């Protein structure tokens, strides 16, 4: 992933520069991009947060990317949850990494699957690698304990007042429950039920 940092940061800088004007939030976005490119993610986060406070709606997505780099995955998930949907593949990629880091594997897989060819060959390759890594986990029927873990997380984060993050964990629990239900039905119909021949 390190090899992709410069590429991703350069793309970020180009994106920001395209809309940059004097004063307001834009200089902070540019400064954040420069810090991000230099791998000073703490400083980048600060600049993106300032840009956000000065009214730049796009800044939340970049702050999410910086939080991913700082491995503050839960905060990154929260940030992406509340960010305006940018639709840029880099945002989706970092959002997927945030989900992955927060153990929201279904979320990560869904976002990576949605990247398609929009992201460029390098990120597409990394996305494929992560999806391949996730595949065994996502294909196995989830255990009761895993399900309970996500529900507990959901409740705990809700109790802390972190509603967006709690919702992400609840959605993951729901996705797991659906997979578990499908697996149970598949196992139950494996020779045990009547043949479904339409008759």
């Amino acid at each position, binding site marked *: 992933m390190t090899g992709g940092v410069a590429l991703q940061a350069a793309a970020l800088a180009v994106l920001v520069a395209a809309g940059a004007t004097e004063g307001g939030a834009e200089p*902070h976005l540019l400064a954040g991009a420069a810090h991000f490119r230099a791998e*000073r993610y703490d400083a980048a986060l600060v600049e993106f947060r300032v840009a956000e406070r000065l009214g730049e709606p796009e800044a939340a997505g970049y702050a999410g990317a910086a939080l991913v780099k700082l491995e503050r995955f839960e905060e990154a998930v929260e940030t992406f949850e509340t960010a305006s949907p940018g639709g840029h593949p880099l945002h989706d990629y970092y959002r997927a990494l945030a989900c992955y880091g927060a153990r929201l594997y279904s979320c990560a897989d869904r976002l990576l699957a949605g990247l398609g060819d929009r992201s460029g060959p390098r990120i597409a390759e990394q996305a494929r690698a992560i999806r391949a890594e996730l595949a065994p986990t996502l294909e196995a029927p989830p255990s009761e*304990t895993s399900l309970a873990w996500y529900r507990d997380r959901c409740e705990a984060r809700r109790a802390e007042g972190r509603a967006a993050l709690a919702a992400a964990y609840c959605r993951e629990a729901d996705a797991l429950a659906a997979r578990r239900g499908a697996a149970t039905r598949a196992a139950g119909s494996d020779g045990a039920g009547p043949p479904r021949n339409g008759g």
Partner: protein
Amino acid sequence: MLAPLLALALAAIDPCAPVEALSPDAAAAQAYRSVADAELAAGARDSAAAAYREALARDPADEASRSALARLCVARGEDPFQDGLRKLDAEDLAGAARAFEAAYAADGSAPAALLGGIARFELGDDAAAERLLRAAERAPAHREEARFYLGLLALRAGDGTRAASLLEGAAVNPSLASPALDLARLARRDGRLVLSFLAESGWDSNVNLGPGGPQGVAPESDGTASLSASALWRPQGARGPYLRAGGLWHELARLDAYDLGGIEAAAGWQLRGGNRGAAAEYEYAHRALGGEDYLGAHRLLASGWLRRGRAVATGSYAVRFESYAGNWSPFSGVLQRAEARVALDATPRLRLGVAYAGARDAADEPVLSFWEHGPRAEARVLLGRARLGIDLGLTFRAYDAFDVALGDRRRDTYLDGAAFLEVELADRWSARAGVVGRHALSSVGALSYDQLAPSVAIGYTLGL
């Protein structure tokens, strides 16, 4: 698990450095201060320091930012947790453990308890590790990680039941589930008393090691069946004294003269500390061949290992005082063997190893005495609940004296190969299919031979 904390330590922003003034900008300063307060509330001191510095640079009259930076500056100098992270990064495990313990003592920090516990675990200080990990276990955010290491501690102490329970508790966390469940399965086979049984059936292409060809004894093949059992008692777990006993019976379908039976008993002591360990053992073994007394042997063994990152270096030395019975008595003597081995976890599922061994057999009869040495390579691949293994070895053996009966001073070269697939059938049951083979070349043509022996086995291991 340590990576995020280490990354934070390495990227630390100095809150004590002088702040250079920029063009005044009250709105931006206010935004920076707001970000700084939020970051500090989230426990992110470095980004908080960066934001306070920017606020102060744009508003030198901002006393709130100045005071916050001053507090961060003082806290950084006195923060044993940060000190622990720096020492961990410098691979000073003992220093890191002390710093994390100080951090935990100061404010009951659960991350400090967890990292201190892990450092103490790595150092082999199990009592201190358990105390800290128990403290970390009380914090929901670190409960599973703490239970994972508590499970490893229980495993080290030989308490397989408790280890399995703790590791299953850790497996609730999805990111720990895979290693924790694998270790829990192993833990159920571990304990202070471990009983193992193995039943095996196979075929041996060349029981009598005949070379074949026009001048040699024809190889005789036969079906084989084996039963073996062993018991290991470790009253203090993986460290300290142990007793071991075992027995085996290897029966051939037709060639009864090659039926082999044996019993053995051993007493030893294991030392473990941090990334190194050592063991010493005495063993007595007795063997019967074809239903008759064959061999009695006393063996002394010393071994040690050292881990560095993903690599483990192992050394061992054994001396065996062999006493053969009846017509075999000229083979009696002293066999010594030493081996150096390095294994590397190339990936989490692939372990590669290379070894070099040398041996000296000083038999009573000089023509039977020899030196031998040679390399060995091995690979182990984890495939879900199965394990694939491949071994290759080359041995060069040179006998001491000219053998009048053979008309030569014998020199042999052995090429050995083995492959096996082990499958975990259930918690305590495993199945194994494998094949071993040897291609032996000798300066005496009648002593060259080839041998191939495939087998299947089922094993049961119980840890109590």
